[in-house]
C-alpha cells in the first residue's frame, strides 16, 4: 500500500462529500415519507406508515403500476426483437452506407428527448396514437432501439465468428443460426440490454409525459403531476410514492448489475492482474 498523497485525500474527500449529500437527499425523502409531522426539528415527531396507504388509494397506484409494467415490458420486447438483428448486422458486416445507418441509430440518443418528443407527440396525436398506451410505447421505442443496438454490439463482437461459419457449413440458414447459435450465446447480453431498457423506460419522463393520456400515465409522470399539484395533497404521500418508485428502480438496478458490469458497456475492461 502506497502512502496516501494529498491528491488521494482530496479525491476521497470529494467522493465522501458527494455521497453524504446524496444520502441526505434520499434520506430526507425516506424519513419524510414515514414521518407524522415534521416542521422545525431534526426528525419528525412520530412515525407512521399511513402515507403509503393514502398514496396507494389517492393516486390509484395499482393502475399506475400496471400501466408502467405494461409499457416497460412492451417496449423491452419490441426493442429487443427489432434491435438485436440490426445490431448483429452493424457489428458484423460492412456495406455501403453503414456509417450513415449507424449515425441514424445514434442520433436519437444524442438528442435531448424533449427536442424530438414535441414533434413526435404532435405526429402521434395527429394519427390518434397519443393519449393511449400505444402512443407511450411508440414514443419510448425511439431511444430504446438504439440503446439495445449499442448495448448489444460488444456482446455480439465477443462471439467467435467461426462458430457461425461452422453452423453455415453444416447447412444452417440465417434464421436457424439466429435461433440455435446466436440467441443462446447472446442470452447474457439480451438480459443486460432488456434490464437497462426497462430501467430507462420506467425512468423516462419527457417522452411519456408528452404522449400519455390520463389512463396511460407511468409512475414517474404520475409522480410529477402529484408534485406539481403540491398543496392539494400531503407532501408526505408524494414522498411515499417517490420512495416506492425509487425502491422498484433499485431492485431492477441490482438485478441489472448482476448481469452486466456497468464499466463494460463501452469498453471491454482489461483488469490488471494482481
Amino acid at each position, binding site marked *: 500500500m502506497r502512502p496516501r498523497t494529498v491528491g488521494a485525500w482530496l479525491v476521497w474527500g470529494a467522493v465522501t462529500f458527494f455521497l453524504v449529500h446524496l444520502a441526505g437527499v434520499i434520506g430526507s425523502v425516506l424519513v419524510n415519507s414515514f414521518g407524522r409531522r415534521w416542521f422545525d426539528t431534526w426528525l419528525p415527531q412520530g412515525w407512521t406508515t399511513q402515507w403509503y396507504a393514502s398514496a396507494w388509494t389517492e393516486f390509484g397506484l395499482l393502475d399506475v403500476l400496471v400501466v408502467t409494467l405494461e409499457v416497460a415490458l412492451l417496449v423491452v420486447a419490441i426493442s429487443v426483437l427489432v434491435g438485436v438483428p440490426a445490431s448483429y448486422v452493424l457489428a458484423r458486416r460492412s456495406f455501403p452506407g453503414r456509417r450513415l445507418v449507424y449515425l441514424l441509430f445514434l442520433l436519437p440518443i444524442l438528442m435531448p428527448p424533449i427536442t*424530438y418528443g414535441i414533434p413526435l407527440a404532435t405526429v402521434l396525436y395527429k394519427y390518434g396514437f397519443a393519449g393511449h398506451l400505444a402512443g407511450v410505447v411508440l414514443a419510448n421505442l425511439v431511444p430504446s432501439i438504439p440503446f439495445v443496438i449499442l448495448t448489444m454490439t460488444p456482446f455480439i463482437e465477443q462471439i467467435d465468428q467461426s462458430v457461425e461459419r461452422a453452423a453455415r457449413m453444416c447447412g444452417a440458414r440465417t434464421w436457424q443460426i439466429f435461433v440455435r447459435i446466436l440467441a443462446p450465446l447472446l442470452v447474457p447480453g439480451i438480459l443486460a440490454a432488456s434490464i437497462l431498457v426497462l430501467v430507462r423506460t420506467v425512468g423516462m419522463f419527457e417522452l411519456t409525459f408528452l404522449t400519455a393520456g390520463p389512463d396511460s400515465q407511468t409512475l414517474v409522470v404520475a409522480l410529477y403531476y402529484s408534485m406539481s399539484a403540491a398543496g392539494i395533497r400531503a407532501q408526505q404521500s408524494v414522498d411515499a410514492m417517490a420512495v416506492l418508485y425509487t425502491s422498484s428502480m433499485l431492485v431492477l*438496478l441490482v438485478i441489472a448489475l448482476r448481469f452486466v458490469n456497468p464499466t463494460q458497456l463501452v469498453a471491454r475492461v482489461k483488469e490488471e492482474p494482481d
Partner: protein
Amino acid sequence: MSATDTNQRAPKTNTSARTAWRHRLAERGMDRQLLLLIPGLACVLALFVYPFAYGIGLSFQPAQGGVFGAYREFFTDAYQRDTIATTLGLALPAAILNVAASVPIAYRMRGRFRGKRLLTTILVVPITLGTVLTAEGLLNYLGPAGWFNRALMATGLTGEPVRLTNNYWGVFFSLVITGFPFAFLLILSYLSGIDPTLERAAATLGAGRGQRFRRITLPLLAPGLATTFCLTFVLAFSVFPSAVLVGDPAGTTRVVSIAAYHAAYEAYDYPLGSAIAVVMGVVELVVVAVVLGLRSLLYTGATGGKG
C-alpha cells in the same frame, strides 16, 4: 427451330444475369442478411426522422408572419430568446464540473480494490433516482428547514437559512446529482479500457506520475472525454422536470424545454413549439460539433476502448 431455341434459353440467361447481379452486390457487402436491418431502420425512420421532418415543416408554417414567422417570434422576444442562454448557463457548467470531477476520481479508482463493485453500485443509484425524486429530495434536504441548513446553522456557519432551492442552484445540484455518476461510470470504463502496460512502459522510461498522466493517459482518454462530455451535456441540456420543480420556472431557470413545452401544450402554438424544438436541437448539435471538433485536433488513433 432457332426460335424455340431462343425461347428456351431466354429464362436461363435471365436467372444467370440475376445471380451475377446478386454476386456483384454480395461482393460489395450487400446481401439478404442486410434485410435484418429493415425493422430497426423502419422504426427509426417512422418514429424519429419523419416526426422531426414534420416538426421542421410545421415550424415554417406559423399562423402569421410568413415562413420564418415562428423563428422571428422566438428570437425577437427577449423572454423567449434568453432561455437559450439560461439553458447553456446551467448545462455547460454542470457538464464541465461532472466530467472534470470524474477524471481524477476515476483515475484513482481504475485499479482493483476491495469494495469497488459496491462503490460503483452506490454511484449508479442516482441515475435511477430520476429527476423527479431528486427534485423532491433536494426540496426536502436543502430547503429552509432541511437538514443541510439545520447543520449549517447548528455549526454557526450562517445565521439564517441559505436559499438553495427554487433558484439556479437547486437545478444545478440536481444536474450534478444525476449527471456526475453517469459521467463517472463512462470515464471509469474508458480509463479501464486503456492498456495499463503503456503506463508501466512510461514508468520504466523514468516518467513521473504527473508526466504519465499528462503524456500517456490523457491523450488516450481524450476521445472518451469528448464522448462523455457530449452525453452529459445532452442530459443536462434537456433539463425539464427539475427546472420546473426545484427551479424558478418563470424566471432564472426558464430553460428552452420549458419554453417549447409552453408554446406547444399550453398555448397550442405547434409551429412555435416545433421551431423552439428545432432551435434547441441546433444549439445542442453545435455544442456537440464544437467538442468533437476540438477532440479531432488531438490524438486520433486506436485507444483500446471504443472511443
